[in-house]
Protein backbone atom coordinates (compact mmCIF):
# COMPACT_ATOMS: atom_id res chain seq x y z
CA UNK A 1 0.00 0.00 0.00
CA UNK A 2 1.22 3.44 -0.91
CA UNK A 3 1.85 5.79 1.98
CA UNK A 4 0.11 9.12 1.82
CA UNK A 5 0.83 12.20 3.99
CA UNK A 6 -1.19 12.43 7.20
CA UNK A 7 -3.12 15.54 6.14
CA UNK A 8 -4.27 13.89 2.92
CA UNK A 9 -5.28 10.81 4.81
CA UNK A 10 -7.40 12.84 7.21
CA UNK A 11 -8.85 14.80 4.28
CA UNK A 12 -9.92 11.60 2.59
CA UNK A 13 -11.09 9.46 5.46
CA UNK A 14 -12.03 11.74 8.42
CA UNK A 15 -12.78 15.33 7.53
CA UNK A 16 -13.19 16.79 4.11
CA UNK A 17 -13.72 20.59 3.88
CA UNK A 18 -15.35 20.31 0.46
CA UNK A 19 -18.44 18.93 2.17
CA UNK A 20 -19.38 22.53 2.98
CA UNK A 21 -19.93 23.21 -0.71
CA UNK A 22 -22.45 20.39 -0.89
CA UNK A 23 -26.04 21.67 -0.43
CA UNK A 24 -27.28 18.42 0.99
CA UNK A 25 -24.55 18.44 3.60
CA UNK A 26 -25.03 22.07 4.65
CA UNK A 27 -28.79 21.43 4.85
CA UNK A 28 -28.13 18.41 7.04
CA UNK A 29 -25.76 20.38 9.28
CA UNK A 30 -28.39 23.08 9.79
CA UNK A 31 -31.33 20.74 10.41
CA UNK A 32 -29.26 18.33 12.47
CA UNK A 33 -27.71 21.02 14.64
CA UNK A 34 -31.04 22.65 15.33
CA UNK A 35 -32.75 19.37 16.21
CA UNK A 36 -29.84 18.22 18.37
CA UNK A 37 -29.83 21.45 20.40
CA UNK A 38 -33.58 21.43 21.05
CA UNK A 39 -33.59 17.70 21.87
CA UNK A 40 -30.72 18.06 24.31
CA UNK A 41 -32.29 20.94 26.24
CA UNK A 42 -35.65 19.14 26.54
CA UNK A 43 -33.83 15.91 27.21
CA UNK A 44 -32.23 17.46 30.27
CA UNK A 45 -35.66 17.47 31.91
CA UNK A 46 -36.48 14.03 30.49
CA UNK A 47 -33.43 12.68 32.33
CA UNK A 48 -34.28 14.70 35.46
CA UNK A 49 -37.83 13.33 35.51
CA UNK A 50 -36.80 9.76 34.70
CA UNK A 51 -38.83 9.65 31.49
CA UNK A 52 -36.28 8.05 29.15
CA UNK A 53 -38.42 4.99 28.48
CA UNK A 54 -41.44 7.14 27.85
CA UNK A 55 -39.50 9.28 25.40
CA UNK A 56 -38.67 6.14 23.48
CA UNK A 57 -42.28 4.89 23.60
CA UNK A 58 -43.54 8.20 22.25
CA UNK A 59 -41.33 7.94 19.17
CA UNK A 60 -42.34 4.35 18.55
CA UNK A 61 -45.99 5.36 18.58
CA UNK A 62 -45.09 8.29 16.35
CA UNK A 63 -43.71 5.73 13.90
CA UNK A 64 -47.24 4.34 13.46
CA UNK A 65 -48.47 7.85 12.64
CA UNK A 66 -45.66 8.40 10.18
CA UNK A 67 -46.25 5.05 8.48
CA UNK A 68 -50.00 5.69 8.34
CA UNK A 69 -49.55 9.17 6.85
CA UNK A 70 -47.13 7.79 4.29
CA UNK A 71 -49.67 5.10 3.36
CA UNK A 72 -52.29 7.79 2.77
CA UNK A 73 -49.84 9.80 0.68
CA UNK A 74 -49.54 12.54 3.31
CA UNK A 75 -46.38 14.08 4.74
CA UNK A 76 -44.92 11.52 7.13
CA UNK A 77 -43.51 14.21 9.43
CA UNK A 78 -46.97 15.52 10.29
CA UNK A 79 -48.33 12.04 10.92
CA UNK A 80 -45.32 11.34 13.09
CA UNK A 81 -45.65 14.58 15.07
CA UNK A 82 -49.42 14.16 15.57
CA UNK A 83 -49.06 10.66 16.92
CA UNK A 84 -46.13 11.62 19.14
CA UNK A 85 -48.16 14.40 20.76
CA UNK A 86 -51.23 12.18 21.14
CA UNK A 87 -49.09 9.43 22.66
CA UNK A 88 -47.43 11.80 25.11
CA UNK A 89 -50.79 13.16 26.26
CA UNK A 90 -52.23 9.65 26.51
CA UNK A 91 -49.37 8.26 28.54
CA UNK A 92 -49.29 11.43 30.64
CA UNK A 93 -53.01 11.09 31.41
CA UNK A 94 -52.29 7.72 33.01
CA UNK A 95 -50.89 9.79 35.86
CA UNK A 96 -48.02 9.35 38.22
CA UNK A 97 -48.54 5.74 39.17
CA UNK A 98 -45.12 4.91 37.84
CA UNK A 99 -45.31 1.15 37.84
CA UNK A 100 -48.67 0.94 36.09
CA UNK A 101 -47.48 3.51 33.60
CA UNK A 102 -44.42 1.47 32.80
CA UNK A 103 -46.43 -1.62 31.89
CA UNK A 104 -49.11 0.32 30.00
CA UNK A 105 -46.44 2.16 28.02
CA UNK A 106 -44.63 -1.06 27.13
CA UNK A 107 -47.77 -2.78 25.88
CA UNK A 108 -48.90 0.23 23.87
CA UNK A 109 -45.59 0.77 22.15
CA UNK A 110 -45.38 -2.87 21.04
CA UNK A 111 -48.86 -2.64 19.57
CA UNK A 112 -48.02 0.64 17.84
CA UNK A 113 -44.90 -0.82 16.24
CA UNK A 114 -46.93 -3.78 15.01
CA UNK A 115 -49.56 -1.59 13.39
CA UNK A 116 -46.84 0.59 11.89
CA UNK A 117 -45.16 -2.49 10.44
CA UNK A 118 -48.43 -3.47 8.79
CA UNK A 119 -48.90 0.01 7.30
CA UNK A 120 -45.42 -0.20 5.79
CA UNK A 121 -46.05 -3.72 4.50
CA UNK A 122 -49.17 -2.72 2.54
CA UNK A 123 -47.60 0.55 1.42
CA UNK A 124 -46.30 -0.14 -2.08
CA UNK A 125 -46.03 3.46 -3.25
CA UNK A 126 -42.96 4.54 -1.33
CA UNK A 127 -40.36 1.82 -1.18
CA UNK A 128 -37.91 3.89 0.87
CA UNK A 129 -40.51 4.89 3.47
CA UNK A 130 -39.67 2.23 6.07
CA UNK A 131 -35.96 2.94 6.08
CA UNK A 132 -36.51 6.71 6.16
CA UNK A 133 -38.94 6.50 9.06
CA UNK A 134 -36.93 4.08 11.11
CA UNK A 135 -33.44 5.44 10.53
CA UNK A 136 -33.94 9.01 9.36
CA UNK A 137 -33.12 10.91 6.22
CA UNK A 138 -31.09 13.89 7.28
CA UNK A 139 -29.56 14.47 3.83
CA UNK A 140 -33.03 14.63 2.24
CA UNK A 141 -34.54 17.31 4.52
CA UNK A 142 -35.46 20.28 2.29
CA UNK A 143 -34.94 23.87 3.35
CA UNK A 144 -38.67 24.54 3.86
CA UNK A 145 -38.92 21.68 6.34
CA UNK A 146 -35.75 22.88 8.07
CA UNK A 147 -37.28 26.34 8.46
CA UNK A 148 -40.51 24.93 9.91
CA UNK A 149 -38.53 22.71 12.25
CA UNK A 150 -36.45 25.66 13.40
CA UNK A 151 -39.59 27.65 14.27
CA UNK A 152 -41.21 24.71 16.03
CA UNK A 153 -37.99 24.02 17.92
CA UNK A 154 -37.73 27.63 19.04
CA UNK A 155 -41.37 27.55 20.14
CA UNK A 156 -40.56 24.47 22.26
CA UNK A 157 -37.62 26.24 23.86
CA UNK A 158 -39.74 29.34 24.52
CA UNK A 159 -42.40 27.24 26.26
CA UNK A 160 -39.68 25.52 28.25
CA UNK A 161 -38.27 28.88 29.32
CA UNK A 162 -41.68 29.90 30.65
CA UNK A 163 -42.13 26.58 32.46
CA UNK A 164 -38.55 26.49 33.70
CA UNK A 165 -38.81 27.12 37.44
CA UNK A 166 -42.09 25.31 38.21
CA UNK A 167 -40.98 22.43 35.98
CA UNK A 168 -37.70 22.12 37.85
CA UNK A 169 -39.56 22.43 41.16
CA UNK A 170 -42.14 19.77 40.34
CA UNK A 171 -39.47 17.45 38.90
CA UNK A 172 -37.38 17.56 42.08
CA UNK A 173 -39.88 18.03 44.88
CA UNK A 174 -43.35 17.27 43.49
CA UNK A 175 -45.06 17.30 46.89
CA UNK A 176 -43.60 20.63 47.94
CA UNK A 177 -44.30 22.16 44.54
CA UNK A 178 -47.92 21.07 44.72
CA UNK A 179 -48.21 22.48 48.23
CA UNK A 180 -46.83 25.80 47.00
CA UNK A 181 -49.60 26.00 44.42
CA UNK A 182 -47.69 24.86 41.33
CA UNK A 183 -50.12 23.26 38.84
CA UNK A 184 -48.06 20.07 38.73
CA UNK A 185 -50.22 18.05 36.35
CA UNK A 186 -50.73 20.85 33.86
CA UNK A 187 -47.01 21.53 33.74
CA UNK A 188 -46.31 17.85 33.23
CA UNK A 189 -48.76 17.69 30.31
CA UNK A 190 -47.32 20.77 28.59
CA UNK A 191 -43.81 19.43 29.03
CA UNK A 192 -44.79 16.08 27.51
CA UNK A 193 -46.19 17.83 24.44
CA UNK A 194 -42.92 19.74 24.02
CA UNK A 195 -41.00 16.49 24.40
CA UNK A 196 -43.21 14.81 21.80
CA UNK A 197 -42.57 17.60 19.31
CA UNK A 198 -38.84 17.44 19.97
CA UNK A 199 -38.61 13.69 19.40
CA UNK A 200 -40.73 13.96 16.25
CA UNK A 201 -38.16 16.42 14.94
CA UNK A 202 -35.26 14.27 16.05
CA UNK A 203 -36.88 11.36 14.22
CA UNK A 204 -36.32 13.29 11.00
CA UNK A 205 -32.60 13.23 11.61
CA UNK A 206 -31.87 9.81 13.07
CA UNK A 207 -35.22 8.04 12.63
CA UNK A 208 -37.80 6.98 15.18
CA UNK A 209 -35.78 4.08 16.51
CA UNK A 210 -32.83 6.30 17.36
CA UNK A 211 -34.47 9.61 18.21
CA UNK A 212 -34.01 8.88 21.89
CA UNK A 213 -30.26 8.88 21.27
CA UNK A 214 -30.39 12.65 20.70
CA UNK A 215 -32.95 13.17 23.47
CA UNK A 216 -31.23 11.20 26.22
CA UNK A 217 -27.58 10.78 25.20
CA UNK A 218 -26.25 14.35 25.39
CA UNK A 219 -28.08 15.40 28.60
CA UNK A 220 -27.13 12.14 30.33
CA UNK A 221 -23.53 12.76 29.27
CA UNK A 222 -23.63 16.35 30.53
CA UNK A 223 -25.21 15.24 33.80
CA UNK A 224 -22.07 13.27 34.62
CA UNK A 225 -19.89 16.34 34.14
CA UNK A 226 -21.73 19.32 35.64
CA UNK A 227 -24.34 19.67 38.36
CA UNK A 228 -25.76 23.09 37.49
CA UNK A 229 -29.01 23.23 35.56
CA UNK A 230 -28.22 26.13 33.20
CA UNK A 231 -24.67 25.00 32.51
CA UNK A 232 -25.86 21.40 32.18
CA UNK A 233 -28.39 22.31 29.50
CA UNK A 234 -25.87 24.40 27.58
CA UNK A 235 -23.30 21.62 27.74
CA UNK A 236 -25.90 19.03 26.68
CA UNK A 237 -26.85 21.16 23.68
CA UNK A 238 -23.18 21.63 22.74
CA UNK A 239 -22.50 17.89 23.02
CA UNK A 240 -25.61 17.05 20.98
CA UNK A 241 -24.73 19.48 18.19
CA UNK A 242 -21.11 18.33 18.13
CA UNK A 243 -22.04 14.66 17.96
CA UNK A 244 -24.55 15.31 15.19
CA UNK A 245 -22.12 17.39 13.10
CA UNK A 246 -19.36 14.89 13.58
CA UNK A 247 -21.74 12.12 12.57
CA UNK A 248 -22.70 13.98 9.40
CA UNK A 249 -19.04 14.58 8.58
CA UNK A 250 -18.18 10.91 9.07
CA UNK A 251 -21.18 9.83 6.98
CA UNK A 252 -19.92 12.13 4.22
CA UNK A 253 -16.36 10.85 4.17
CA UNK A 254 -17.49 7.26 4.62
CA UNK A 255 -18.12 7.11 0.87
CA UNK A 256 -14.39 6.50 0.65
CA UNK A 257 -14.42 3.93 3.43
CA UNK A 258 -14.56 0.21 2.67
CA UNK A 259 -16.38 -1.44 0.98
CA UNK A 260 -16.52 1.83 -1.00
CA UNK A 261 -18.99 3.47 -3.35
CA UNK A 262 -21.66 3.62 -0.66
CA UNK A 263 -21.82 5.87 2.41
CA UNK A 264 -22.43 4.51 5.88
CA UNK A 265 -25.71 5.59 7.52
CA UNK A 266 -25.46 8.83 9.50
CA UNK A 267 -27.66 7.36 12.26
CA UNK A 268 -24.97 4.81 12.95
CA UNK A 269 -22.36 7.50 13.50
CA UNK A 270 -24.56 9.76 15.62
CA UNK A 271 -25.70 6.99 17.94
CA UNK A 272 -22.17 5.57 18.21
CA UNK A 273 -20.81 9.00 19.10
CA UNK A 274 -23.62 9.50 21.62
CA UNK A 275 -22.74 6.22 23.28
CA UNK A 276 -19.01 6.97 23.18
CA UNK A 277 -19.62 10.38 24.78
CA UNK A 278 -21.79 8.85 27.47
CA UNK A 279 -19.25 6.17 28.34
CA UNK A 280 -16.39 8.69 28.40
CA UNK A 281 -18.31 10.96 30.77
CA UNK A 282 -19.16 8.02 32.98
CA UNK A 283 -15.51 7.07 33.17
CA UNK A 284 -14.58 10.67 34.00
CA UNK A 285 -17.17 10.85 36.75
CA UNK A 286 -15.02 9.41 39.56
CA UNK A 287 -12.59 12.31 39.13
CA UNK A 288 -15.51 14.71 39.32
CA UNK A 289 -16.83 13.03 42.43
CA UNK A 290 -13.46 13.27 44.18
CA UNK A 291 -13.30 16.96 43.45
CA UNK A 292 -16.70 17.43 45.04
CA UNK A 293 -15.95 15.46 48.16
CA UNK A 294 -12.67 17.31 48.58
CA UNK A 295 -14.74 20.48 48.77
CA UNK A 296 -16.63 19.04 51.73
CA UNK A 297 -14.38 19.22 54.77
CA UNK A 298 -16.92 18.14 57.39
CA UNK A 299 -17.97 14.50 57.69
CA UNK A 300 -21.25 13.27 56.26
CA UNK A 301 -24.31 13.28 58.48
CA UNK A 302 -25.73 9.81 57.96
Amino acid sequence: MKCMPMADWIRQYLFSPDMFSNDQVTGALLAGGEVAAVSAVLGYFVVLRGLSFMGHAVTDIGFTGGAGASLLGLNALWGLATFCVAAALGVGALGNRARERDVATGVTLALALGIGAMFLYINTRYVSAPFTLLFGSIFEVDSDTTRVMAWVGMACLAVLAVLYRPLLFSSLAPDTAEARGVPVRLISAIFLVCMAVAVAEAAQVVGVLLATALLIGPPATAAYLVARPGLGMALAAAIGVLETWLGIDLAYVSYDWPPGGKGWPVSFFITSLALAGFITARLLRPAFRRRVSAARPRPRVV
Partner: protein
Amino acid sequence: MPIPAHDATVLRLDRVTLQLGGREVLREVSLDLRAGEFVGLIGANGAGKTTLLRVILGLLRPNSGTVEVLGRPLRRGNRAVGYVPQKQQLDPDIPLRGRDLVGLGIDGHRWGVPFPSARRRARIEEALRAVDADHYADAPVGRLSGGEQQRLLIAQALLAEPRILLLDEPLASLDIKSASEVVRLVARIGRERGVSVLLVAHDMNPLMDVMDTVVYLAEGRAAVGPVTEVVRTEVLSRLYGYPVDVLQVRGRILVLGGSEVLMGGHTDHEMHAHG
Protein backbone atom coordinates in the same frame (compact mmCIF):
# COMPACT_ATOMS: atom_id res chain seq x y z
CA MET B 1 -45.48 40.01 56.90
CA PRO B 2 -45.70 41.14 60.54
CA ILE B 3 -44.79 38.51 63.09
CA PRO B 4 -47.95 37.65 65.03
CA ALA B 5 -47.78 38.41 68.74
CA HIS B 6 -46.83 35.47 70.87
CA ASP B 7 -49.81 33.32 71.74
CA ALA B 8 -51.65 34.55 68.67
CA THR B 9 -53.28 31.65 66.87
CA VAL B 10 -51.66 31.05 63.47
CA LEU B 11 -53.57 27.90 62.54
CA ARG B 12 -57.01 26.81 63.68
CA LEU B 13 -58.74 23.58 62.78
CA ASP B 14 -62.33 23.37 63.95
CA ARG B 15 -64.05 19.96 63.94
CA VAL B 16 -62.44 18.85 60.67
CA THR B 17 -63.90 15.63 59.27
CA LEU B 18 -62.64 14.02 56.09
CA GLN B 19 -63.69 10.91 54.24
CA LEU B 20 -61.49 9.19 51.68
CA GLY B 21 -62.88 6.26 49.69
CA GLY B 22 -65.88 5.95 52.03
CA ARG B 23 -63.64 5.71 55.11
CA GLU B 24 -63.57 8.41 57.73
CA VAL B 25 -59.87 9.27 57.96
CA LEU B 26 -60.28 12.31 60.20
CA ARG B 27 -63.10 12.69 62.70
CA GLU B 28 -63.86 16.07 64.24
CA VAL B 29 -60.21 17.07 64.60
CA SER B 30 -59.81 20.44 66.30
CA LEU B 31 -56.55 22.13 67.05
CA ASP B 32 -55.08 25.59 67.64
CA LEU B 33 -51.47 26.29 66.77
CA ARG B 34 -50.00 29.38 68.38
CA ALA B 35 -47.13 31.51 67.11
CA GLY B 36 -43.77 29.93 67.91
CA GLU B 37 -45.33 26.76 69.30
CA PHE B 38 -43.69 23.35 68.74
CA VAL B 39 -46.29 20.66 68.19
CA GLY B 40 -45.66 16.94 67.72
CA LEU B 41 -48.23 15.18 65.57
CA ILE B 42 -47.98 11.61 66.80
CA GLY B 43 -49.68 8.48 65.54
CA ALA B 44 -49.16 5.07 63.99
CA ASN B 45 -49.14 4.36 60.26
CA GLY B 46 -52.62 4.96 58.87
CA ALA B 47 -53.69 7.12 61.80
CA GLY B 48 -54.29 10.04 59.42
CA LYS B 49 -51.14 12.12 60.01
CA THR B 50 -50.25 12.75 56.37
CA THR B 51 -53.91 13.30 55.54
CA LEU B 52 -54.09 15.97 58.22
CA LEU B 53 -51.02 17.70 56.75
CA ARG B 54 -52.58 17.63 53.28
CA VAL B 55 -55.70 19.26 54.70
CA ILE B 56 -53.60 22.02 56.28
CA LEU B 57 -51.80 22.52 52.94
CA GLY B 58 -55.14 22.91 51.18
CA LEU B 59 -54.55 19.83 49.01
CA LEU B 60 -57.52 17.99 50.52
CA ARG B 61 -60.83 19.64 51.30
CA PRO B 62 -62.52 18.50 54.50
CA ASN B 63 -66.09 17.19 54.25
CA SER B 64 -67.00 19.34 57.22
CA GLY B 65 -65.30 21.70 59.63
CA THR B 66 -63.10 24.72 58.94
CA VAL B 67 -59.39 25.46 58.63
CA GLU B 68 -58.03 28.97 59.14
CA VAL B 69 -54.48 30.14 58.57
CA LEU B 70 -53.57 33.48 60.18
CA GLY B 71 -57.27 34.13 60.72
CA ARG B 72 -58.20 33.65 57.07
CA PRO B 73 -59.86 30.68 55.36
CA LEU B 74 -57.39 28.24 53.92
CA ARG B 75 -56.21 28.42 50.34
CA ARG B 76 -53.78 26.25 48.45
CA GLY B 77 -50.25 27.54 47.89
CA ASN B 78 -50.31 29.74 50.97
CA ARG B 79 -46.76 31.00 51.54
CA ALA B 80 -47.39 31.21 55.26
CA VAL B 81 -47.34 27.41 55.41
CA GLY B 82 -43.96 25.82 54.71
CA TYR B 83 -43.83 22.13 53.97
CA VAL B 84 -41.02 19.57 54.24
CA PRO B 85 -42.30 16.35 52.68
CA GLN B 86 -41.47 12.83 53.70
CA LYS B 87 -38.01 11.95 52.44
CA GLN B 88 -37.60 10.40 49.06
CA GLN B 89 -34.05 9.59 48.19
CA LEU B 90 -33.25 11.47 44.99
CA ASP B 91 -31.54 9.70 42.09
CA PRO B 92 -27.75 9.87 42.67
CA ASP B 93 -27.11 11.17 39.14
CA ILE B 94 -29.49 14.11 39.32
CA PRO B 95 -27.50 16.97 37.76
CA LEU B 96 -28.24 19.62 40.37
CA ARG B 97 -26.49 21.07 43.37
CA GLY B 98 -27.97 21.36 46.83
CA ARG B 99 -28.22 25.12 46.45
CA ASP B 100 -30.25 24.77 43.26
CA LEU B 101 -32.79 22.71 45.18
CA VAL B 102 -32.86 25.24 48.01
CA GLY B 103 -33.24 28.20 45.65
CA LEU B 104 -36.56 26.81 44.42
CA GLY B 105 -37.96 27.83 47.80
CA ILE B 106 -37.65 31.50 46.77
CA ASP B 107 -39.18 31.45 43.32
CA GLY B 108 -39.79 27.85 42.25
CA HIS B 109 -43.51 28.52 41.89
CA ARG B 110 -43.03 31.45 39.51
CA TRP B 111 -42.95 31.17 35.74
CA GLY B 112 -39.84 31.79 33.72
CA VAL B 113 -36.13 31.41 34.35
CA PRO B 114 -34.44 32.67 37.54
CA PHE B 115 -32.31 35.79 37.40
CA PRO B 116 -29.19 35.39 39.50
CA SER B 117 -28.65 38.28 41.85
CA ALA B 118 -26.50 39.01 44.85
CA ARG B 119 -29.61 39.26 47.01
CA ARG B 120 -30.90 35.87 45.84
CA ARG B 121 -27.51 34.27 46.50
CA ALA B 122 -27.31 35.86 49.95
CA ARG B 123 -30.76 34.62 50.92
CA ILE B 124 -29.91 31.07 49.81
CA GLU B 125 -26.63 31.26 51.74
CA GLU B 126 -28.44 32.44 54.87
CA ALA B 127 -30.96 29.58 54.66
CA LEU B 128 -28.15 27.06 54.11
CA ARG B 129 -26.34 28.34 57.19
CA ALA B 130 -29.55 28.16 59.23
CA VAL B 131 -29.66 24.39 58.68
CA ASP B 132 -25.86 23.86 58.78
CA ALA B 133 -25.84 22.76 55.14
CA ASP B 134 -23.55 25.42 53.67
CA HIS B 135 -20.53 23.09 53.47
CA TYR B 136 -22.18 20.57 51.14
CA ALA B 137 -24.42 22.93 49.16
CA ASP B 138 -22.30 22.62 46.01
CA ALA B 139 -22.30 18.83 45.87
CA PRO B 140 -24.71 17.05 43.49
CA VAL B 141 -27.86 16.70 45.56
CA GLY B 142 -28.47 13.04 44.74
CA ARG B 143 -25.12 12.05 46.28
CA LEU B 144 -26.02 13.46 49.69
CA SER B 145 -27.36 11.33 52.52
CA GLY B 146 -31.03 11.33 53.46
CA GLY B 147 -30.32 13.55 56.46
CA GLU B 148 -28.40 16.06 54.34
CA GLN B 149 -31.19 16.19 51.74
CA GLN B 150 -33.65 16.71 54.58
CA ARG B 151 -31.77 19.78 55.78
CA LEU B 152 -31.78 21.20 52.27
CA LEU B 153 -35.55 20.73 52.07
CA ILE B 154 -35.94 22.53 55.40
CA ALA B 155 -33.81 25.40 54.05
CA GLN B 156 -35.97 25.43 50.91
CA ALA B 157 -39.12 25.72 53.01
CA LEU B 158 -37.61 28.53 55.14
CA LEU B 159 -36.95 30.70 52.08
CA ALA B 160 -40.68 31.25 51.60
CA GLU B 161 -40.62 32.87 55.08
CA PRO B 162 -43.40 30.72 56.48
CA ARG B 163 -45.18 31.34 59.80
CA ILE B 164 -45.89 27.62 60.10
CA LEU B 165 -43.53 24.78 59.24
CA LEU B 166 -44.99 21.33 58.58
CA LEU B 167 -42.54 18.43 58.62
CA ASP B 168 -43.75 15.00 57.52
CA GLU B 169 -41.82 12.22 59.29
CA PRO B 170 -38.44 14.02 59.26
CA LEU B 171 -37.00 11.49 61.71
CA ALA B 172 -37.89 8.38 59.73
CA SER B 173 -34.84 6.29 58.88
CA LEU B 174 -32.47 8.50 60.88
CA ASP B 175 -30.35 7.04 63.65
CA ILE B 176 -30.93 8.32 67.19
CA LYS B 177 -28.11 10.86 67.11
CA SER B 178 -29.11 12.37 63.75
CA ALA B 179 -32.77 12.38 64.81
CA SER B 180 -32.02 14.40 67.92
CA GLU B 181 -29.88 16.78 65.83
CA VAL B 182 -32.79 17.38 63.45
CA VAL B 183 -35.19 17.92 66.37
CA ARG B 184 -32.85 20.45 67.99
CA LEU B 185 -32.30 22.19 64.66
CA VAL B 186 -36.02 22.52 63.95
CA ALA B 187 -36.73 23.70 67.49
CA ARG B 188 -33.99 26.33 67.23
CA ILE B 189 -35.32 27.59 63.91
CA GLY B 190 -38.82 27.81 65.36
CA ARG B 191 -37.58 29.74 68.37
CA GLU B 192 -35.31 32.13 66.49
CA ARG B 193 -37.78 32.97 63.75
CA GLY B 194 -41.03 32.76 65.67
CA VAL B 195 -42.15 29.97 63.35
CA SER B 196 -44.68 27.46 64.62
CA VAL B 197 -43.62 23.88 64.02
CA LEU B 198 -45.88 20.90 63.37
CA LEU B 199 -43.68 17.82 63.25
CA VAL B 200 -45.07 14.41 62.33
CA ALA B 201 -43.56 11.32 63.98
CA HIS B 202 -44.36 7.75 64.98
CA ASP B 203 -42.68 8.18 68.31
CA MET B 204 -42.92 11.18 70.62
CA ASN B 205 -39.87 10.28 72.71
CA PRO B 206 -37.26 12.16 70.62
CA LEU B 207 -39.45 15.29 70.90
CA MET B 208 -39.94 15.34 74.68
CA ASP B 209 -37.45 18.15 75.35
CA VAL B 210 -38.82 20.59 72.79
CA MET B 211 -42.51 19.78 72.36
CA ASP B 212 -45.00 22.30 73.80
CA THR B 213 -48.09 20.40 72.70
CA VAL B 214 -48.84 16.93 71.44
CA VAL B 215 -51.52 16.08 68.91
CA TYR B 216 -52.09 12.38 69.39
CA LEU B 217 -53.93 10.83 66.44
CA ALA B 218 -55.59 7.42 66.61
CA GLU B 219 -58.54 6.02 64.70
CA GLY B 220 -58.88 9.40 62.93
CA ARG B 221 -59.50 11.25 66.21
CA ALA B 222 -57.11 13.66 67.88
CA ALA B 223 -56.29 14.38 71.51
CA VAL B 224 -54.55 17.76 71.86
CA GLY B 225 -52.71 19.32 74.78
CA PRO B 226 -49.53 19.20 76.85
CA VAL B 227 -47.96 15.74 77.03
CA THR B 228 -48.78 15.35 80.73
CA GLU B 229 -52.48 15.92 80.04
CA VAL B 230 -52.83 13.92 76.83
CA VAL B 231 -50.60 10.92 77.26
CA ARG B 232 -52.57 9.35 80.10
CA THR B 233 -54.30 6.04 80.36
CA GLU B 234 -57.85 7.40 80.52
CA VAL B 235 -57.43 9.98 77.72
CA LEU B 236 -55.79 7.60 75.26
CA SER B 237 -58.19 4.74 76.11
CA ARG B 238 -61.06 7.03 75.14
CA LEU B 239 -59.21 7.98 71.93
CA TYR B 240 -58.42 4.41 70.84
CA GLY B 241 -61.85 3.19 71.95
CA TYR B 242 -60.37 0.36 73.99
CA PRO B 243 -58.27 0.17 77.15
CA VAL B 244 -54.64 1.11 76.70
CA ASP B 245 -51.83 1.56 79.20
CA VAL B 246 -49.30 4.39 79.33
CA LEU B 247 -45.98 3.33 80.83
CA GLN B 248 -42.74 5.11 81.58
CA VAL B 249 -39.73 2.86 81.16
CA ARG B 250 -36.31 4.41 81.81
CA GLY B 251 -37.51 7.81 80.72
CA ARG B 252 -39.25 6.50 77.61
CA ILE B 253 -43.00 6.71 77.22
CA LEU B 254 -44.70 3.58 75.89
CA VAL B 255 -48.34 3.15 74.97
CA LEU B 256 -49.58 -0.43 75.17
CA GLY B 257 -52.86 -1.87 73.96
CA GLY B 258 -53.17 -5.39 75.30
CA SER B 259 -49.85 -6.99 74.43
CA GLU B 260 -49.22 -4.66 71.46
CA VAL B 261 -46.95 -1.63 71.63
CA LEU B 262 -48.95 1.21 70.07
CA MET B 263 -46.35 3.97 70.49
CA GLY B 264 -42.75 4.29 71.58
CA GLY B 265 -41.69 0.66 71.32
CA HIS B 266 -39.40 1.26 68.41
CA THR B 267 -37.53 4.28 67.27
CA ASP B 268 -38.66 5.51 63.87
CA HIS B 269 -35.36 4.21 62.56
CA GLU B 270 -36.08 0.65 63.60
CA MET B 271 -39.64 0.78 62.36
CA HIS B 272 -38.32 1.68 58.95
CA ALA B 273 -35.60 -0.92 58.93
CA HIS B 274 -38.10 -3.67 59.71
CA GLY B 275 -40.54 -2.42 57.11
